[in-house]
């Protein structure tokens, strides 16, 4: 008998597991139907089970709107939706834990877009849908939904920024324009000033945007960051750090929080920097004492700097589908949920400021106190666009670092140096070299592994080509996306390449694509390319 019984038991379990896994190995998913003959309407008619994630507050409304879609659409689409609660700020992380089990349609905050694109948790919009988004939404919303030059999501709101709520019984109207006066007023009243500058880069950036600093990230259409222009570590950045220090060093006044419940905490805050989403809550807590206005200015060396902010958006994403019909149906639904009518409805019921240009013009939106405040602040805001996910972790340290410094130029500069070192660590760019960008490194030109070795005036790289049909690439300068050298520059070894590449119509990016598997050495002197097969 011995161990046999135990083994058989174990084996059965193992097999059970392995067989399950085995069943789904070769992904025999229905390939998309590219036929041009079938009209879309009849092709996508059908019943689809759809999982939707939206924030708790929007659950009831979203369910209602989807039911309305089932009635309204003329295409024969029936959506059987399950709507689950998920906050927009965490949706991206959760989706990427397991895309296949994730929602088909989800609300998310724009900072997660690049990550979702890179993690393939979100599908591209088609040409017509993209055009519609570009035509109907405001600038910040389009930027939020775009990475590279590809639109990936439908804008839901365009008011994801922050401004200042204050308690009118404590703060006088004439003080609201000056950070220094506000801190003094809070101190005098024994109240607190809440701004989440210890733990959130989103709020810290306010000071840096005030002095004209930028942190502009460029992502390609695959969600990969290819370049960054960051001037936080600069003379202007130092001025911003001085402003930030005023708040951070006021330790008896400052509270790092964006929770408007601080208005009723003990010690209570008189000021909370937060966004439009908190409007109804602040109203409940403060009642008639609620004030909402744009952020103040801080004064450094006699000059005023009006605090900036991010102008960001909430987006609606569609998960990549294997069934193109379902994908098309979902896109119909997403367009419906983000059209003029439904953005207005969302504004009316939830107070979400629309991204739709027409919807922004209606009086109710224009006169809403939170919208007035955010619009006032938006004059000083920076369009958020795409920012590297790790930037938030890196930049949030500035707050505590500045707060714990001695406030001297050297102390503040050290915080900025720390920041810069971390950015460089994150985004390693050797500005002197050349990189072979291609299928090997997912076309990521920040990937130093495919940096070409410099030898005198020549750059060389050896590439293993396991397959010929799609393995290709081009030579770029780090940080720059455009092809510097490609097929057209090949002088020796043209016969080793796929002849189709000679046709510029088929090779817009001037890529080098090898005709057969093998090992190739690519050498360039900066003007021409030599390719040798081993």
């Amino acid at each position, binding site marked *: 008998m011995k161990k046999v019984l135990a083994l058989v038991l174990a084996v059965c379990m193992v097999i059970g*597991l392995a067989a399950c896994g085995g069943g789904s190995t070769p992904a025999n998913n229905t390939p998309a139907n590219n036929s041009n003959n079938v009209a879309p309407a009849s092709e996508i008619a059908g019943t689809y089970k759809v999982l939707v994630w939206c924030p708790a507050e929007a659950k009831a409304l979203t369910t209602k709107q989807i039911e309305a879609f089932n009635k309204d659409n003329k295409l024969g689409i029936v959506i059987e939706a399950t709507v689950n609660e998920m906050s927009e700020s965490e949706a991206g992380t959760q989706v990427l834990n397991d895309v296949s*089990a994730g929602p088909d349609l989800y609300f998310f905050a724009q900072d997660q877009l690049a990550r979702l694109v890179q993690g393939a948790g979100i599908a591209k919009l088609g040409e017509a849908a993209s055009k519609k988004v570009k035509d109907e939404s405001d600038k910040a919303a389009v930027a939020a939904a775009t990475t590279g030059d590809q639109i990936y999501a439908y804008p839901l709101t365009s008011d994801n920024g922050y401004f200042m709520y204050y308690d009118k019984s404590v703060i006088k109207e004439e003080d609201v324009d000056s950070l220094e006066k506000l801190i003094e007023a809070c101190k005098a009243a024994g109240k607190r000033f809440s701004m989440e500058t210890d733990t959130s880069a989103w709020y810290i950036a306010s000071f840096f945007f005030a002095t004209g600093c930028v942190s502009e990230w460029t992502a390609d259409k695959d969600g990969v960051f290819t370049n960054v222009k960051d001037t936080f570590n600069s003379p202007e950045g130092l001025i911003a750090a001085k402003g930030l220090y005023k708040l951070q060093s006021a330790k008896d006044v400052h509270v790092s929080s964006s929770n408007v419940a601080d208005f009723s905490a003990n010690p209570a805050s008189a000021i909370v920097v937060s966004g439009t989403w908190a409007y109804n809550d602040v109203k409940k807590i403060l009642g008639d004492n609620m004030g909402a206005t744009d952020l103040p200015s801080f004064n450094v060396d006699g000059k005023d700097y009006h605090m900036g902010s991010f102008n960001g958006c909430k987006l609606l994403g569609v998960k990549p589908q294997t069934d193109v019909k379902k994908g098309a149906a979902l896109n119909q639904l997403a367009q419906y949920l983000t059209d003029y009518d439904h953005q207005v409805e969302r504004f009316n019921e939830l107070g979400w400021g629309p991204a739709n240009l027409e919807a922004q013009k209606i009086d109710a939106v224009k006169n809403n106190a939170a919208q007035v405040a955010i619009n006032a602040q938006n004059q000083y805001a920076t369009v958020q666009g795409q920012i590297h996910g790790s930037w938030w972790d890196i930049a949030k340290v500035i707050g505590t670092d500045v707060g714990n410094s001695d406030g001297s130029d050297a102390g503040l500069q050290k915080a900025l140096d720390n920041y810069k070192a971390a950015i460089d660590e994150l985004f390693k760019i050797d500005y002197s070299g050349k990189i072979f960008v291609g299928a090997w490194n997912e076309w990521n030109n920040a990937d130093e592994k495919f940096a070409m070795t410099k030898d005198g005036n020549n750059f060389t790289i050896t590439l293993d080509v396991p397959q010929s049909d799609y393995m290709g690439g081009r030579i770029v300068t780090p940080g720059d996306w455009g092809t510097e050298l490609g097929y057209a520059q090949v002088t020796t070894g043209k016969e080793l390449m796929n002849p189709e590449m000679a046709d510029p119509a088929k090779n817009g990016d001037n890529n080098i694509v090898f005709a057969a598997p093998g090992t190739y050495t690519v050498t360039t002197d900066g003007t021409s390319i030599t390719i040798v097969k081993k």
Partner: protein
Amino acid sequence: MSKQENYDPSEIKRHMGMSAKNRISNTVIYIVLIIMSIVWLAPFVFIVLQSFRVESTWMVGYVVPKTWGLDNYINLAKTDFWHWYTNTFIMALATAVGQTVIVLCMSYTLSRFRFKMRNGLMRFMLILGMFPGMLSMIILYRLLKDLNMTQANAVPGLILVYIASSGMGYYVSKGFFDTVPKTLDEAARIDGATRAQVLWKIILPMAKPIVIYTILTAFMGPWGDFVVARYISMNTPAGMNVAVGLNSWLSADQIISRYTMFCAGGVIVAIPVTILFMCLQRYYVEGVTGGAVKG
């Protein structure tokens, strides 16, 4: 609870004299204990008080509600709370049974049998225990997903996770079994009982404290599990436990409207676990002291 009071005979003599010194030291001890009790209980009292506050739903700077009411408890019924609660209760029960069986099998075997691979096995498990379990989560998720035990079906999946590896936690009950004299087994064996009968008829009845200890700790586990349960249920209310569900109420977009409900939910979660623990405390003490200290 009288036995341990005899451990120090010198105390008895001194006690009879009831010297002034002793009275002072006892007073000091009472003061320390009272302060400790306040510190220990305050957070729980605060949570209970908050759960009865109806004038606002967010965090406030005072403790005693201005208006008392059961609104927060009543409102729980409008959410998925009771669903999560049932899920957790089922998981706790199943885990208590499964984990106890596994742990007892493992610990009894390692305490009573001397077989070839025994030492190797124990050392191997000791080494396995040195790896942080955190990363296993991702792999367990994929395994369970292939068995269709995630999302809405997370309850059986989580039960499996809680039970499957529980054999690793055999130390405490092995320590207990080690203290049960081997002569008992041998006598029964001479009488013709099989090993299985020895376990079932002789050892188990004697092992009541450790069985209850194991059941109790196993039962308490699923109530507090947050990280793994969240990963496996992947935001599907049907598969969530109370820890995951209640935590979602503390996310930035919900905390304002659901904070007092969080407190109410917390109170309801704490009640059964606390009562059970209080009732079975004696066994818990016997369990940990009988086994834990021995490793």
